[in-house]
């Protein structure tokens, strides 16, 4: 439960970087093209707790074309077993769950299409749970 008023509202202006241009391929047209592809090859990197539960800091995965981040996390849950799965699940309340962080090519999926972000061939995916500040 959140306090009733946060005093400000959202809204972001995304600068026109190369990464944004690449992401904009996730339009219907782009997605259709991808669905036709048989596989996409992505690099998955993890650090900290996720890394120790996965047992491997870096791995290359071949996924069916059109796979979203949600699908990738499902696949990793299978690989990492029941200890890892809860960390990759969608949190029901924030305080009781680790804030899973997923970045695609250095960009937080929160700034893309969240768990519905479609993976593209050659994507670099970083998955981790931040522990603390400095």
């Amino acid at each position, binding site marked *: *439960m959140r306090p009733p008023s946060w*005093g400000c509202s959202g809204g972001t202006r995304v600068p026109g970087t190369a990464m944004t241009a690449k992401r904009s391929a996730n339009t219907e047209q782009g997605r259709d093209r991808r669905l036709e592809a048989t596989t996409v090859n992505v690099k998955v990197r993890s*650090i900290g707790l996720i890394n120790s539960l996965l047992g491997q800091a870096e791995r290359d995965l071949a996924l069916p074309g059109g796979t979203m981040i949600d699908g990738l996390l499902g696949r990793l849950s299978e690989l990492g077993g029941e200890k890892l799965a809860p960390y990759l699940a969608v949190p029901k309340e924030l*305080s009781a769950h680790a804030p899973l962080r997923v970045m695609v090519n250095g960009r937080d999926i929160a*700034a893309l299409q969240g768990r519905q972000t479609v993976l593209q061939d050659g994507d670099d995916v970083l998955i981790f749970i931040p522990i603390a500040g400095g």
Partner: protein
Amino acid sequence: MYRGGYTGKILRINLTDKTFKEEPLPLEVAQDFIGGSGFTVKYLYDEVPADCDPLGPENKLIYAPGPFTGTTIPCASRMAINAKSPATGAMGVATTGGHFPVEMKRAGYDVIIVEGKAEEPTYLWIKNGEVKFRAAKDLWGLTSTDTQQAIKDELHDQNVRVSCVGPAGEKLSKMACIVNERRVAGRKGLGAVMGSKNLKAIALRGNLQMEISDKEKYDAARKRMRDGMRNSPILYPEFSRYGTSTTLDLTQAMGIYPANNWTGTGDFAPADKIGGFAFEALSAGKTACSGCPVGCSQLRLAKEPPYTGWFTEGPEYETLYAFGGVTGVDNPDAIIAADRISDELGLDTISAGVTIAFAMELFERGILTLEDTGGMDLRFGNHVAMVKLLHMMGEREGLGNILADGTKAAAERIGKGSEKYAMHVKGLELPAYDVRGAKAHGLNYATAFTGADHNKGYAFQEIFGIPIPYAVDRLATEGKGKLCKWNQDARTALADSPTMCVFLMDMAVADFMFENTADLMEGTTGLTYTPEEVHQVGERVNNLARVFNTLAGLTRADDDLPERLKTEPIPSGPSKGQMISQADLDFMLDEYYEARGWTREGIPTRAKLEELRVGYAAAKLGL
């Protein structure tokens, strides 16, 4: 009236005429400012002329723990210290944890205000309502650990708690800090203010038990917070096990770990040597602040020559940047030694490391020569030179004397265009996040009332991806003015004023953070707040501090970032190509001032000050 939490007393000490008196803590001050940072900003604003010399007798040193400090609420063993900063000329609030803050409450005080200047080196001994002015001539020149031990021995009481300066504070270094146990009120040069008063230390002892206003509400609020801590999957065992050190692994992965005086972000990737997980190999146990069940403080022991045997509490993430990335060093033993040496000399690790990195860049560019460095090869990555220069800064020897006041002052003395490489805002060196890749975090560096201070408005949304109050794109500029205000006010209201450990906000009570403080306040003190009113306490403090800074001569032009961040993109890595151009900064500043209800020049308006019940500050601004 408040009925618990507070002792209800302010202790005012005058070093010039060796007098002291107790004053009551007014209800309206408690209600409107909560404690800690809020109290110190209020009293500094009220009592210290904004245009005074920070190292003159008019400046005051103000200590304040919070209403929960000394109760059984965990993670509240912190306090704020404030004075006009010699580094920035602005308000210089710093916070520290450990045990001293709890002892100060037990000694009977919500606030201690130290005025004037002692004729001879002095330390204060506070116990049972008495203040003794004791000679500190024999303590002058001692390191922070030796000072604390010598005072305990002299008073025949090993449980005395001491807040002191090392040699750097005595020598008025503008990056000198104040040390208690192995914790530090760092940045902003508060140690120099203490040294300027000929005050070596404050020692105190007490046995007062805090009263609780409503035991039932107190227990319920405390239980909710404890449950949040217990249920957090990262507080235990991860954060407890690694502390802040793994942030290096994170920022490196995000491409925002600054290196080589901010020229090598993304190129320098030392996590496998000095990251949090790598550092575990040098573990020598852990410790905790008073009443803290988490214990994030890691103890580390250096194992390799020439640093074998150096032992420290930390290094925290910021220090892994200051004596790591920004100086181009990837030797963990050297970082352990540099961390400890800084604390012993009483130098701030961030400012010291960034200033050494500044000198390294000047050396590589030929602006400083071997003659200037006394024959030292000061290239990036030379950890032996780094440690040697640190000693020289603490003792003000040779080049160390020029660097001891930080990058801004050093650039003014060195000239030759060196200001271009001085990484500071308002005279305070940049902390450990390359904000070209985290824009709200960068706007906070530009606007925090203490200078480039990550703790004043940490954008945990950008760094950790926590979607409160909403998810953001760390690379976007729109919306960051509002977010920066939100963060600065939240941090002041939830951490710095109640003096709660900030890590709770991110990791244990994230989705009820304002309610948590409101409920704890009602149970402990009897003072009631809505969640919005808690947030507004932070806004009030930030506005009053801004008025002080405006009166001290700071303007919109000081809400700036170093030239490099505005003109040179991050060279490589996941944040490659990012920067904050002058246009980006102006855009975010306009939005920030508008969200704050200030003029386009960044000056608080009468309407805003009256809305926050500090309308009395408008007259000083001539409004």
